[in-house]
């Protein structure tokens, strides 16, 4: 029996992650499709962030604990790193990414979301769980 990650508060996280996967994905798609040369780095980062949100959504929905842990960690590191970098060197990020200025353009949700995700995963770690490699 694997620890379910997709009920209760987990279902709320899935919803918000899904929303961000959609928002970041659509935005990155439009940016890369129409104006990629303007800010390749920012747009590739947007695409990376979108990909992480998609994987995180699936990981939570299917209770892939380890994968969810990796995604939330990558997000947290990403938003902290890019947030700090965009403060220190605004010139490097001429166009906003989801993670610029710690996600200010998205009401700081990109900063809060991985923290909530990690707390949720920790809260569910009470019982020892077999490896979640099952499809």
């Amino acid at each position, binding site marked *: 029996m694997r620890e379910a990650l997709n009920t209760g508060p987990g279902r709320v996280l*899935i*919803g918000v992650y899904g929303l961000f996967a959609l928002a970041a994905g659509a935005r990155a798609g439009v940016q890369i499709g129409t104006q990629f040369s303007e800010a390749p780095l920012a747009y590739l980062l947007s695409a990376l962030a979108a990909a992480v949100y998609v994987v995180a959504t699936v990981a939570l929905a299917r209770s892939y604990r380890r994968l969810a842990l990796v995604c939330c960690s990558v997000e947290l590191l990403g938003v902290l790193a890019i947030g700090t970098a965009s403060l220190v060197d605004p010139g490097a990020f001429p166009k906003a990414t989801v993670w610029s200025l710690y996600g200010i353009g998205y009401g700081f949700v990109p900063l809060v979301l991985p923290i909530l995700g990690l707390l949720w995963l920790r809260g569910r770690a009470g019982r020892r769980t077999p490896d979640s490699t099952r499809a």
Partner: protein
Amino acid sequence: MPPHWLGTAVTIAGLLVAVWCLVPVLRDRAVDASHWAALGILQALVTAEVVAAIVHLARGAHPHQYVTFIGYVVALFLVPPLAMLLARLEPTRWGALIVTVGAVVVPVLILRVNQLWSGGA
């Protein structure tokens, strides 16, 4: 010009529905019929806004960020039903939180739709 009165109505409805759906979250209850009804009204208003946007485009309007505009309109139309679907799977306070979040997202999307409506930015 976007139909501001309609956008304003949807925004206010979204915020009111969010507050109404927050009550069961705080009381540790599942949503009941009153919340589904409120969400239904919100979706009706959202649908009116979406129809207005479609008419806007059908009349030959071409917002500067055309694809993005359509994306936001589609998202606007889908967010409340998807939140309701997810909330139905979760008949607890957490389901109520899901529709609360969904209702809050609606005014945000309206804001963006209005910004992109005719143009420049």
